């Protein structure tokens, strides 16, 4: 469904109908969402998948209660029937309300944007996309017996957003991603590694990832870990974390706990709550070297957008600033609950989901040190370059990250591989131990899970290399 063929009148009619039925607020997202994927399992191409979908998602506020509907058969009579039923249910649910739900005020927005593709994804032959996976596989086979699962995936969203306050937004966002899972074996034992890259843009993004070179280095490194890896050193050591580790850490223990809907309890039974509350704002949580931002406006990023799915303009948010909790991620509802304006964090995967508070691109800001300077003076330490398993509790306090490619540091030099060092820490425990940040920055991608039903939304996470002190590894 191209911009010109979108039935904007249908979206506008839904807003009008909802208002006639008593809605004090209505918003509609009319969207075509196409997704394709190519899979290569070891040397076998599995399936090429091409999904096409058009539909409408709408939210209404009636008597202070909120409802959401989504429909993909866009015959007007069917859509209007569903609007009527949705509003009836909202009215019924309003009787459980103790106070009416409110949205923070927001001026109407009118804007159109198209994410630029130097090489349009639709112009790249599917055969060439599968050939690219075979090239990655060839690099993986440098270590005999390595099993792999490779997935190249892309989406194209063309979306018209309108609401009863006069906002009208049109966007066209292509995204592409690559996921791989490697199993390297030696001596009857194995190690596994998974990674995802992602970007908003065209085929040119794939070339920037340099995967064919990097994956070859990774399988050789994992083989060395298997054959020569030693246990992590005992006692307190320095820990140097790569941008990949910093990315997952700030995503899990800064981005998630600062989601204001969690803080207000909205995800209590699913994605969980947060150890943070309003009392934490302005309070120290870590070393002043730590600043973590959330920024949807990074061009080419996997989490890129200009306006969120409530029509609020995107901007950079400083979640932790100089070691202090500084801001939360808000939609219009949580902003109203805290008496402020939204900072544009409402996102939905596509028209079939309600917009909720989400991250986009979460990263620690770089410092001043080169990688060599971070290593200097480390008598005994560990460098965790990549990780396998990780998890964190549902209040975002207790977490663990298991190193994959990791090395011993002795007297400032990288030495032998370390096998599966376990970094198990509390959130303030992590931020307090950061003593130096590198001047580099890198990102990896992910599909962050939240909501009911689960929405896996594209995000970037990253940061510089950093050094921690007084860490005990398992």
């Amino acid at each position, binding site marked *: 469904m191209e911009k010109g063929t979108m039935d904007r009148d249908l979206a506008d009619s839904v807003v009008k109908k909802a208002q006639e039925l008593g809605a004090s607020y209505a918003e509609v997202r009319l969207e075509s969402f196409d997704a394709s994927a190519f*899979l290569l399992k070891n040397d*076998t*191409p*599995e*399936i*090429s998948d*091409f*999904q*096409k*979908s058009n*539909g409408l998602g709408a939210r209404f506020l009636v008597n202070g*209660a*909120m*409802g*959401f*509907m*989504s*429909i*993909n*058969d866009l015959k007007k009579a*069917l859509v209007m029937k*569903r609007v009527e*039923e*949705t509003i*009836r*249910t909202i*009215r*019924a*649910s309003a*009787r*459980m*309300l103790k106070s009416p*739900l409110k949205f923070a005020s927001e001026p109407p927005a009118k804007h159109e944007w198209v994410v630029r593709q130097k090489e349009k994804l639709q112009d790249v*032959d599917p055969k060439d996309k*599968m050939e690219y996976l075979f090239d990655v596989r060839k690099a993986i086979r440098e270590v005999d017996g390595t*099993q792999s699962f490779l997935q190249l995936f892309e989406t194209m969203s063309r979306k018209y957003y309108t609401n009863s306050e006069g906002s009208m937004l049109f966007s066209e966002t292509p995204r592409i991603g690559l996921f791989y*899972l490697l199993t390297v074996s030696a001596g009857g034992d*194995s190690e*596994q590694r998974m990674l995802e890259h992602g970007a908003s843009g065209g085929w040119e993004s794939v070339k920037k990832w340099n995967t064919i070179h990097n994956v070859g280095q990774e399988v050789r490194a994992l083989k060395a870990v298997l054959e020569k890896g030693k246990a992590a050193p005992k006692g307190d050591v320095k820990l140097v974390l790569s941008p990949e580790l910093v990315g997952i850490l700030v995503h899990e223990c800064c981005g998630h706990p600062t989601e204001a809907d969690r803080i207000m*309890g*909205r995800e*209590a*039974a699913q994605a969980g*709550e947060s*150890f943070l509350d309003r009392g934490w704002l302005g309070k120290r949580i870590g070393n002043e070297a730590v600043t973590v931002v959330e920024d949807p406006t990074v061009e080419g990023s996997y989490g890129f957008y200009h306006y969120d799915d409530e029509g609020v303009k995107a901007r950079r948010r400083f979640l932790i600033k100089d070691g202090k909790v500084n801001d939360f991620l808000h939609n219009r509802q949580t902003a109203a609950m805290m008496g402020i304006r939204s900072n544009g964090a409402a996102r939905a995967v596509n028209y*079939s989901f309600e917009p909720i508070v989400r991250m986009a691109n979460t990263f620690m800001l770089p410092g001043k040190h080169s990688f060599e300077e971070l290593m200097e003076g480390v008598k005994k330490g560990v460098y965790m370059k990549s990780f396998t*398993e990780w*998890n*964190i*509790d*549902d209040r975002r306090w*207790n977490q*663990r990250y298991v190193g994959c490619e990791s090395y011993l540091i002795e007297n400032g030099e990288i030495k032998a591989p370390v096998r*599966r060092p376990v970094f*198990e*820490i*509390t959130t303030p425990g992590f931020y307090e131990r950061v003593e130096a940040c590198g001047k580099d920055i890198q990102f990896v991608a992910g599909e962050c899970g939240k909501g*009911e039903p689960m929405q896996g939304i594209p995000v970037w996470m990253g940061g510089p290399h950093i050094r921690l002190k007084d*860490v*005990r590894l398992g």
Partner: protein
Amino acid sequence: MDISESFRGAEFVVDQAKELGADDCVATVTKSLARQLKFVNNEIATSKAWDFVNTNVFMSVGKRIISSTIRETDEARIREAVKSLLAVAGKMQPKKDYNGIAKGPFQYREIPETFDQKVASLAEGGVDIVSSAVDKALEKGVKRCSGVLLWNSSESFKATSGGVKASEKGTDMQFSLRALVDKEMSGHRVGLSRMMGKLDHNRIALEAADMAVKASRPSDGKVGKYDVLFHPMAFANLMSYTANSFSAFYVDSGFSFLADKIGKKVASDMFSLTDDGTVPNGYWSTKYDEEGHPVRPTPLVKDGVMQTYLHNTSTARNHKTESTGNAGLISPSAWNIDIRQGDMEVEDMISSIKDGLYVTNLWYTRFTNYRTGDFSTIPRDAIFRVKDGKITGNWKSIRISDNMLNIMRNVSALSRAKEQVYWWETSVPVTTPHVLVKGVNVTKPQ
């Protein structure tokens, strides 16, 4: 022609695919209407409705596999869509180990208790269910209740080039309630049913609230090896991850700790696990799989010994066996996992624990290595400390860091009663008793 008109649409797609050169084709038209009430802090936060019609098609030509959705509704455009998909498929490399789909037609056995008109027509009546359950929980002394009530009605029509022409309609309901006294005192329970009369929402609410109230003043746990009694909510979480490891696709991909284990001991003698898509009122019970092959009960572990992997027609031929009726056209998957119950009462199981824990829920289970089964997971909600057969307090902030084969091999007791669990953190329906596991490794953060 309106493709949403059931068989005609599915058959037309298959006919066109065959005429245009496809070797295999599966077309499925699904109509569904799902509704959800999401409640937060004792109020309904959002009521939701999804009204969808989808036509999915799977085709192979010269072992080249493609899948897609078809949005077109008139015959000429459907034919064009199929033609262009086959043209794309023709450019791809063949999947050499692809071995076709099931050849029908088949006779299907109706599964009792899979459709209830009362569920299909519930509409705004769901508010009464949520309201009643929240009130029950609050009466027990909790401060906040959050969760979801989800109900769904669907109808699907399937045609395949293997001669299958089949249809099925079903309903399902899911109720999840987490009760909180404060941020660190909570209890969580879920209930599932295909039939309105079999979802006891008030019992779920009372049990969640009871757990929350008993989880008072938790203290930080201690590292060590403990005998752990897993509540069905917790053990179902572990088994939902294990369910994937039974899939032949996961085994062939290097993602399964059960690779090369058929005929071998993988669990304690008292441990038996079956996948059964035919169980009445089973949350994912169905007459046929994605190929239209009839579904059946499949013992996967019997008295501790691994029996088979889950197969579709293609993976079964590669493994020189028969389909277990678990297609997934690419990856076979489980329907309803069932753990054989034991003969103990939960109270007696607690009394038998000298130095252990009673874990009532798990969260964020992740594998360090899918092939070896090394994993960790985080107990949440009530974690009861058990010493000398008695509950002596509550813990928080711990992690179970162990190996899935160790867990299965160290099962030492199973309760008589069991229940079906499926929710946000348990992605396959699992019916399980309480399970006692000896010597589970517990860690905590620095």
